[in-house]
């Protein structure tokens, strides 16, 4: 980074982020205006297309948090984990079971979800020092599959509802997406923004830098004197807790949990979000989640059965031709453009300086 960019005022440096936040905060009202609804009706929580779209956006925020947590594990730390969906599913199921079967209050469920995330991360950490690369992927896939199998067994039916999934979960009064969707919208939005800021801080911190170093070259990081295991563990724990919390919001939003989120398919969906946005870019993961969710919704509305086919084709095309995703490619190109502009400027300025020199000579 040269001096020109760091000299910018903080407002200008974070303009993109601030505009996005302001836009998302105003979006329910914008949607209402577009539909021609009075604000009173929006605040009174009348059912409308705008309310439906709010719901879609709430799902986007929840998935964005899931995607960013996957990005921390896969993109930033470089752990090829195929069991990340389990973190989300565990949080989801735990929230459902605690609310439905045990009738815990919301704050206790929150603590429970955090502890569950911690527990999951530690479960992965048990195998972390032993296996690497593809074997780690297989083991995490295995652990996630065991979880998937366990929640589907008949023995767990009273708690998890086996193949049907968990249904009829009571909604807490404070966070009720049916009675007051706008509040739920802002809570999930605030949650997503907080998580994004936290992750940004984490990746920019010395700990996060070591995580990136681990991804780039683990042996070198070890030789410098970092015990990479602890850094990988820190990333896993942070990601596990976040994904678990995202799972909690998922259960609160649509008070049913389907066993599909525990399968490999959901992890692959997370991968797709990362790929669309750009692996290892954090903000890309969230953008990817938004694009994927909205695309899925509209594609299945327009094409029905064929939507999966089109999604698959998009997936392949992105892997082949846009490997760094939207944000990643944009960052690369932006640097190119900036460098090109500077070269151009220095070419011109240099020539302007050169010509008088030559004239003197």
């Amino acid at each position, binding site marked *: 980074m040269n001096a020109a960019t760091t000299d910018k005022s903080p407002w200008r440096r974070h303009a993109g982020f601030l505009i996005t936040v302001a836009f998302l905060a105003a979006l329910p009202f914008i949607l209402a205006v577009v539909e021609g609804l009075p604000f009173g009706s929006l605040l009174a929580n009348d059912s409308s297309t705008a309310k439906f779209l709010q719901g879609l956006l709430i799902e986007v925020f929840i998935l964005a948090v899931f995607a960013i947590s996957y990005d921390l594990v896969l993109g930033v730390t470089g752990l090829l984990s195929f069991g990340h969906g389990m973190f989300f599913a565990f949080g989801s199921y735990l929230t459902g079971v605690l609310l439905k079967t045990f009738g815990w209050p919301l704050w206790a469920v929150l603590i429970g979800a955090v502890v569950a995330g911690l527990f999951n991360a530690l479960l992965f950490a048990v195998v972390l020092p*032993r296996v690497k690369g*593809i074997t780690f992927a297989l083991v995490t896939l295995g652990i996630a599959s065991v979880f998937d199998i366990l929640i589907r067994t008949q023995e767990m039916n009273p708690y998890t509802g086996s193949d049907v999934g968990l249904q009829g979960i009571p909604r807490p009064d404070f966070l009720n997406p049916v009675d007051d969707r706008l509040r739920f919208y802002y809570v999930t939005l605030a949650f997503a923004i907080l998580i994004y800021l936290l992750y940004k801080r984490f990746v920019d911190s010395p700990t996060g830098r070591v995580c990136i170093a681990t991804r780039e070259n683990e042996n070198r990081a070890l030789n410098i004197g970092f015990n990479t295991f602890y850094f990988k563990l820190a990333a896993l724990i942070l990601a596990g807790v976040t994904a678990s919390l995202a799972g909690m919001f998922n259960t609160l939003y649509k008070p049913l949990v389907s066993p599909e989120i525990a399968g490999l398919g959901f992890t692959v969906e997370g991968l797709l979000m990362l790929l669309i946005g750009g692996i290892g870019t954090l903000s890309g993961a969230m953008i990817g989640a938004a694009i994927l969710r909205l695309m899925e919704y509209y594609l299945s509305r327009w094409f029905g*059965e064929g939507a999966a086919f089109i999604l698959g084709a998009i*997936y392949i095309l992105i*892997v082949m031709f846009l490997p760094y995703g939207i944000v990643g490619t944009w960052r690369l190109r932006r640097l190119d453009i900036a460098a090109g502009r500077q070269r151009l400027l220095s070419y011109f300025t240099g020539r302007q300086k050169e010509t008088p020199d030559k004239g003197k000579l």
Partner: protein
Amino acid sequence: MQNLLQSYRKNRTLIITLVILLLLLLLAIQGMSTRDWVVTLLRGLAVGSITFLVAAGLSIILGLLDVLNLAHGTLFMIGAYVGWSMYVRPDTVVDISTPFLLVLAGFLLMPLWLPLLSRLKLSRGTMRVWPWIALVAGLALLAVALTRYPISIWSATVYQDSPIVWTQYFEAGTVAENVTPATFPSALGALLTWGALLIGSMLVGLAAVGFAVARRGATAQAGRPATRPLIWFVVLVIVGVALYVVNTPLSGFLLGLGSNALFVLAIVVATLVGAGLGGLMESTLIRPLYERAIYQILLTLGLGFIGVEMVRTIWGRTGFTMPKPELFSSTGDGCPADSIAGWLQYHCSTIIIDIGGEPARIRTYNELFVIAVGIFVLIVVWLLLQRTRLGMIIRAGVQDSRMVEALGINVRRVFTLVFALGVGLAAFGGVIAAPANGLSDTMGATLLLSSLIALAIGGLTSFPGAAAGAVIVGLTQQFIIRYGQLGINLPFMEEPWKPSPPLVPASVILLMIVILLVLPQGLFGRSE
């Protein structure tokens, strides 16, 4: 003695693990009657053989190309479905072969375009634009021609015409009566459609070459144009048209064949289709990604999902069965047989043998034929790896593929060949597994998981490891299923504990995790 002790110390963990596994097996055998364990052992070996057919290809591909092909399960499934099509509806395969050959012929002309393009002097702007136009036009032509092409095929959505009903026709021997041959309404229509197919595929091929030229610039050596593609083109077009001309008699002949001959044909066709798909996948999609390791995994994962969707659109979402060939399906006179000779005489579906004083039912296809095929493939692939030049290159490539390339061997071509071989093996496994286990859109994912587990247990890139892992996975599954029926007498429990069916895959996964924690490289894996 000294050496023995040394090698023991070196492999202590491995030896102890193997001993524990063996003890577990003995323990499992101990709890059953002789008949039960023999039958369970056979079933486990059968599951192991099918798993091995997939795991073997996966392991060789992973070893040589460093690609974990997560689409392998889907390709296994595609093999099974293609095999079913050849087995039950050979007329459909004959119908499809004409447009397929014509499209292939169009693509085969690709080497001719490069010298042609290098002679044309086009501006950069034109070079950028025209391939896109050619691509769109070619794809549109292909889409129009292929959707109009008359193919007599089952329907995935209408029950009366679904694969399930066709399977029933096959079992009743009335497929030939129910087939309505599809032909062009007029000769002009046929010529137009064929022309569209040829021109469309040529345009797409031209576009592909155009893209490459636009990116890298034309670097063709001046010289006489290659005549070999042209000869192939003519041959394929003639064969394609000839197949259309003899379509009706050929379909009639194939439909009149016995199920044994059809089964052999199904195996051949499915293996070839699988190998072709594998070669295509490697040369077009995976080859550009050798530098980006994770992306290959992501790509194959996506391809696997697309393949499942494709199978769902063509064959439908509901599963169906594939009838067993005559040799393994008779239930009439002299059946169930009391020995293998009796089976050969009467072609029984089951043999009942006295084992340990109890009669044991052994299915000839599921438990004898499948195991025999597994052992046969094990020996053939082992011979291929150990005794041929290709095998030597593969083994060397698994060790260090750069060194092999440095020695002047075209590793790229070997890569394509090995990928095609591995996928062909998986498709072959699909046809073998289909009559035993039926066809469904989840068969690929299930088998991929168990063969991945087998690989991880055996050591990712080791061929004997793949075999051992597959057998361990198969045996564990089947013994736990059997114990789920019998119940285990555990101490401190009143009633015998019965593991519920979902615990079968879970137990195999747990076994894998435990083995990997003890031996991170797997049983026979190379430590890095």
